[in-house]
């Protein structure tokens, strides 16, 4: 209840602030006001840092991770996230990576589904059918568990491995997808995220070819999205980018999405995880 109230409050604050900002701009309309608006948006972002509703999801996710669930009545505590069974601390910062047991490069969400299927006996198709919650709705199990695990990598250096040949191949395919212009609007990821200091409206766009913006972006997903009152994972982030790119819908945890995350993660090497973050 408290969570929902604070989420509602933050969302209302966001709407109030943004509409006030735009009204101000249309009447005064000088460059100074634009700078001031950007400063105010920055101040609003700072204010948000005081209370992140994702903290409650971290607690719920930890309980869920340790609880015996599924047809096999097992917990996820033996899940191997790449650093050995049961090691959660720092694991998110080293994903995607190659897993010999699946003979595949997997991002965190793909690995989570793998563990929920193999250890707990959940049905893969059922798990992956609706991985994202609607705006303001209760988080899905995948979102809840992701929030817990990513919190255990806060402050840990991003080090997505490039040792195994399949990890290198994943990076190369991800790079191709990043630059692939297609669909009715001819957009690629790189149209918005391959040049320095670009903006859509007033929204800054990180250039993934440069380490500092790539690190900042990669480090702060998953994030609690105030405007949607929901925790959003990296798979969701890609999904919503592709929607605006006018591509067809990326399949949740498909190899193409994992490859793209490998590309982004390698570009973000050396940054420090700071997730779950809170965003407008």
């Amino acid at each position, binding site marked *: 209840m408290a969570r929902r109230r604070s989420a509602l409050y933050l969302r209302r604050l966001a709407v109030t602030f943004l509409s006030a900002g735009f009204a101000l701009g249309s009447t005064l*309309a000088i460059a100074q006001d634009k700078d001031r608006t950007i400063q105010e948006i920055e101040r609003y972002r700072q204010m948000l840092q005081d209370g992140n509703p994702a903290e409650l999801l971290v607690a719920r996710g930890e309980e869920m991770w340790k609880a015996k669930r599924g047809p096999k009545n097992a917990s996820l505590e033996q899940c191997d996230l790449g650093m050995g069974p049961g090691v959660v601390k720092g694991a998110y910062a080293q994903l995607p990576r190659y897993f010999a047991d699946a003979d595949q490069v997997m991002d965190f969400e793909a690995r989570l589904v793998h563990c929920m299927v193999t250890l707990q006996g959940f049905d893969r198709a059922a798990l992956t059918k609706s991985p994202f919650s609607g705006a303001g709705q209760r988080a899905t199990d995948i979102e809840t568990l992701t929030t817990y695990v990513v919190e255990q990598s806060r402050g840990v250096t991003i080090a997505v491995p490039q040792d195994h*040949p399949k990890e290198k*191949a994943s990076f190369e395919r991800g790079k191709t997808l990043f630059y692939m212009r*297609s669909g009715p609007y001819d957009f690629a990821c790189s149209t918005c995220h391959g040049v320095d200091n*670009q903006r859509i409206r007033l929204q800054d766009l990180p250039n993934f070819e440069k380490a500092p913006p790539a690190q900042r972006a990669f480090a702060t997903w998953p994030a609690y999205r105030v405007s949607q009152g929901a925790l959003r994972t990296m798979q969701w982030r890609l999904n919503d980018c592709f929607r605006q790119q006018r591509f*067809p819908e990326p399949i949740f945890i498909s190899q193409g*999405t994992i490859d793209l995350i490998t590309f982004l993660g390698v570009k973000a090497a050396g940054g420090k995880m700071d997730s779950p973050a809170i965003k407008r």
Partner: protein
Amino acid sequence: MRANIVMAAAGAVVFAGCASMMYTPPTKEETQAVIKSSFNDRGIAKVDRLNQTELQAVCSDTHNDPPKDVRARLEKAALAAVKYPTDGKWLGDFKQGERIAQTGVGMQWNDKPGAPAGGNCYACHQLSKAEISFGNIGPSLHNYGKLRGNTEQTQRYTWAKIWNTHSYNACSSMPRFGDAGILTEAQIKDLMALLLDPNSPVNQ
């Protein structure tokens, strides 16, 4: 002699072990197959959108910097296919144009099929001075008409830029608003008015 054979055999085993770990970059075909298997139809956004046109493929492969001769060929083809207004009228209503410039809907999987799309010009360009929430991916278009004049030459050029941006700048980031069927002829006329009409907020 015997020792040599044993050593050679051991070497072969080690070599075979390395070979399975050796990296060969994925071929173009392998990459395309992985990408195509990673998307589904949703709403109006079907997987056939992953089939690239020649221009899309060239711009992707060259990171938007094609060789000079290829660039010239793409621009020539784009310009030759521009459809100019059928009734000889270039300018519509700049107020409608402002609305089209503000709206970003169209052709996403959550958009209604057949609903009119926007141009979303403000996402990337400055236009009227009153709108301070504008992007910077494209150049500022404030005072576009004032600076260039509403001549027939400017009208033809501007129409072609909106219809198919590649006619003057191959591998530009801008969508092909006319060529790709995003905006109608009437909508493009309204955008033309927004840019060129002396009374438009863009030219104040």
